[in-house]
Structure formats: C-alpha cells, structure tokens
C-alpha cells in the first residue's frame, strides 16, 4: 500500500444526541478520507446493555439508523470510511442493522464490527473501584463492564478494507489514532508519534466543542451562525502535525481560544493524558492560528502506554424522584423557601438522601457568590433517591400537593421518576480483554 502524505478526518458527532447534519455536510464538502462519529458517553453503554438484555437485536446507539441512512450514499460516493462507536453494547447487531439499511438503499457495503470490550464475564465483584476504594459489588448490582480498547483493537478492522468500522467501548482519541497508524504506518510503540495523534483525536472528539460550540458568550466570545455550526476536520501529516479546520460556509469559529478550551477539556493531568495507546504530554504542544478558522497543531510528546486498561462498570443505583414548582413576584424567594421547609418536614423521615434547590438562586452554585440579589421568580426543586419507582414518585406527588396545601401563588408543577445507573471504574490487565473483528457484507 502506498502511504498517503496527508489524511483528512472529520468528526461529525461528539456525543450520542449530537446534531445529524454536520456529519452529512462534512462528508459532502470536507474532502475527507475518514469520518468519525463519537457517540458513547460513560453511562450510554450501561443503558444500551439494558436494552440488549430485553432484546438481543438491540443495544446499539438509538440514532444509528437515522445517522447511517443520511450518510451512507455520500460515504459511498466520496469513498469515505466511517469509524464510529455507535455499536455501544452490541456492535454486531449494529453491523447487521447497517447491512439492512444498505440493502434497502441498494448500496454495496462492507462493515467490520470490533468486539471484545465487554468484559462482564471477567468481573467477580471483589474488584476495587478507583473512585471509592471499595469492592464494586458494594455499589449495587453490576449490569455492564466495558474495557476501553485502543487503536490496536481497531487496526485489524481497518485492514479488512471495510467501509464502516463499528465499535463498542474504545477510548475516544483511539478512533482517530487508528486510521492515522493505518495510513501512515506509524508504530504503536513510537510513543511520541502516537501522542501527537492522540492530541489531534482529543481536540476533535467533541466535534462542535472546537468550532465554537460550548464556547459562545455574546460580546466577550461571539460566535456567528451557531444554528448551522460546522463540525471540525483535521488534516494530519505523517510527522503528526495537523491543521484543524471546518467546511467553508458553515457556522461557528475556530480560534486559539476555542482550541485551548478543548485541549484542556476533561484533562486531569496535562503531563500524562492516559489512553490505552499512550501517556501523552500536552505541555509540549503548540497551537497557532493559521488563517481564518484554521489552527495548526505541532509538538506533543508521549511515553509508554499503560499496562492496564480502564474498565467502566455500570450498576443499578435505584431511582430518583423529583418535583418542581415556581413562585414569582413579591416575596417569591421566601415563599419558595417556605415550600422547601414544608417538603423537608414531610419527606425527611422517608428519604435518607433528599435535596432542596432554589432554581434561579442557589441551585447550581450553592455558595455566597453574588447571592445577595432578590430573584423575581424562583423554582423550587425537590429531589430524592429511592429503592423503587413507587417510592420515588412520592416526591413529585408531595410537590404537586403544595398547590392546595402550600404557600400562595405556586405554579407550573412538573414531576419525574428516573432509574439511575451508576458508573465506577476499575483497572484491568490489558491482555485480559480479547478483541476481534466480525465482518458483514452486502453486495448489490
């Protein structure tokens, strides 16, 4: 295979619920070699596992069908390979679904599913959670256990020549590192070059978060045309340097400021950003504005990949019940507080964990930061944890009963009950999960 002198990778989704059309736009006008859709948050896979338990043909991303239907003709026409973790808890069922869509659309397709991240069979419950230091069985009944696989698990899928590579849990940057290794022939043992690829992957993985999404603040940080925000592409070179850009005519902006915010996003140690592929050092990276909506990324270094893989454990954590009611006008905060006190008195014996928030006042920053103002309207929120849905529902019922039993002028009650899946992490020897590839094909 002749090695390319540059590879262009777009990122068309940064989370499961992301917009659909930026990916289509990237495929159509981004001059891409690869399109990545990153759709798997920590908890998404545990929820998907639950769906798979009820129906073995389910357990992949709920938006898979809509995303693939929209993208498939363009991917085929432009010869763009798709890499996505939309397989969630069931990459093989996802591959079957994609074959079904291709058949319906009359498009020949080869899909490679990467499996082996599901390590539930290796879990005994005595493993110590990194977050608590206690055995994971103490948290609650384990429902899922998925190891973060790396680029080494994706490479064999790329080598099959498949048009679409669909995975379950893999580290987000590895979705980008794998095609770079595949195209440039980088060695997975060359920590510096893998760190550079990882850095590009990290900048890209949240899609719109580097093109002005989650950045805008009118006046101080203006971003134009956010209703048509473009998602990014990276043009990567064999030395690991890259240009981050977006399709002309799309909304949003790429500046040093957007790139810096994203580079540091969720990084707990900039000297050692750990993935299954490498420990990357972000303190040796350089960013430079290279024209409008273009950032040049150079530098970056790394050291040896870890001998363990992180495993995300999903467990049943009971239910939450919530109720909300709004007060407005004169004395709104005091009336809301009176309602809050009534709820405390009626509920504290039944709920060991109860929370009362005043939305519009102290609900998200419960400190003395600028809380001397009197809000015109306040929304009381009461939330509690329970073992059953019936118990959890009591919170909403009690808040609703404030209509006729509580302070004057309360309105707009909403009540919710939700099942809670908790997540803790453990470390596992990197040789324990055995990844493999299953290929599905449809010839039109």
């Amino acid at each position, binding site marked *: 295979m002749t090695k390319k002198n540059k590879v262009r990778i777009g990122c068309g989704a940064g989370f499961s619920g992301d917009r659909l059309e930026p990916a289509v736009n990237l495929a159509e006008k981004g001059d891409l070699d690869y399109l990545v859709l990153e759709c798997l948050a*920590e*908890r998404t896979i545990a929820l998907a596992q639950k769906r798979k338990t009820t129906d073995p043909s389910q357990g992949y991303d709920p938006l898979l069908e809509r995303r693939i239907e929209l993208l498939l003709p363009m991917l085929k026409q432009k010869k763009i390979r798709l890499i996505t973790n939309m397989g969630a808890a069931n990459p093989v069922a996802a591959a079957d679904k994609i074959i079904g869509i291709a058949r319906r659309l009359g498009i020949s397709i080869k899909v490679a599913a990467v499996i082996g991240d599901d390590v539930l069979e290796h879990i005994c419950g005595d493993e110590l959670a*990194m*977050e608590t230091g206690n055995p994971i069985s103490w948290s609650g009944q384990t429902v899922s256990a998925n190891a973060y696989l790396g680029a080494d698990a994706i490479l064999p899928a790329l080598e099959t020549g498949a048009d679409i590579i669909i995975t379950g849990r893999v580290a987000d940057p590895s979705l980008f590192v794998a095609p770079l290794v595949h195209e440039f022939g980088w060695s997975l043992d060359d920590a510096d070059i893998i760190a550079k690829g990882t850095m590009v992957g990290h900048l890209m993985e949240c899609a719109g978060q580097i093109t002005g999404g*989650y*950045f805008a*603040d009118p006046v*101080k*940080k203006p971003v134009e045309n956010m209703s048509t925000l473009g998602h990014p592409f990276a043009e990567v070179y064999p030395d690991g340097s890259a240009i981050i850009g977006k399709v002309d005519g799309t909304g949003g902006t790429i500046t*040093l*400021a957007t790139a*810096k*915010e*994203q*580079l*540091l*996003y*969720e*990084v*707990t*140690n*900039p*000297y050692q950003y750990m993935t299954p592929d490498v420990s990357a050092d*972000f*303190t*040796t*990276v*350089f*960013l430079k504005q290279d024209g409008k909506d273009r950032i040049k990324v150079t*530098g970056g270094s790394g050291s040896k990949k870890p001998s363990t893989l992180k495993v995300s454990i999903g467990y049943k*954590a009971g239910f*939450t019940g919530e109720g909300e009611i709004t007060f407005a006008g004169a004395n709104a905060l005091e009336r809301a507080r009176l309602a809050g006190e009534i709820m405390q008195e009626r509920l504290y014996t039944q709920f060991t*964990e109860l*929370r009362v*928030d005043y*939305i519009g006042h102290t*609900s*998200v*920053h*419960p*400190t*003395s*930061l*600028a809380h001397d103002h009197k809000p015109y309207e306040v929304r009381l*929120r009461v*939330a*509690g*944890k329970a073992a059953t849905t019936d118990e959890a529902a009591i919170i909403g019922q009690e808040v609703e009963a404030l209509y006729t039993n509580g302070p004057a002028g309360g309105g707009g009650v909403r009540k919710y009950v939700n099942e*809670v*899946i*908790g*997540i803790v*992490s453990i470390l596992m020897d990197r040789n324990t999960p055995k990844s493999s590839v299953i290929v599905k094909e449809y010839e039109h």
Partner: protein
Amino acid sequence: MSIKLYDIAHSRAGDKGNTLILSLIPYEEKDYELLRDVVTADKVKEHFKGIIHGEILRYELPNISALQFVCQQALAGGVTTSLVMDAHGKTLSYALLEMCIELPAG
C-alpha cells in the same frame, strides 16, 4: 483596581467522576503571568468553599498560556448518581470567572 476574572479570561469545566476540571485561559497571552501569580490553588479553594471539598492541583501550561485546576471531591459524589441539578459541574466555569483579583499598581 479590582477586576473579575471574567473580564480578562475564559474557562471550560470538565468532569471525571467526582473530580472537577477547570481551565483558565487569558484572552491576551500577556495576562498569563498575572493569572499564574494571583490565581493560586489556595485562592481557588477559598473561592469554592462549600463546593470543592478535596484537594486542588494547579497545572501551568506556558506553551498555551493557560492554567488548569484539578479539583477533588467537587461534584457531590459524581455525575452518575448525584442528586444535584448540574451533576457534571458544567456551570462551575462561570463560578470561577466570578473571582475578583487585584490588578498590580501601575
């Protein structure tokens, strides 16, 4: 003269379990040294009294003129089982930017 961090810097919050991660990035790279000198881990800990209960580690990134604060025990137990409204602590970037600092004379 006293200013808010909001006047000269921007921030994004991230989370890992019960750990809150806050970047602090000056709009003008020349302000990096001021922020590095004034916005210490202790000052951030004091500012977030009642929210951040654990240790705060500050990382300096002169290569991109930015600071990173990694704050333990900051998210009421972590995203997945917390009862708080903003379980990720995503709004806390703007709580950091509420901090007032004194500009050096001259």
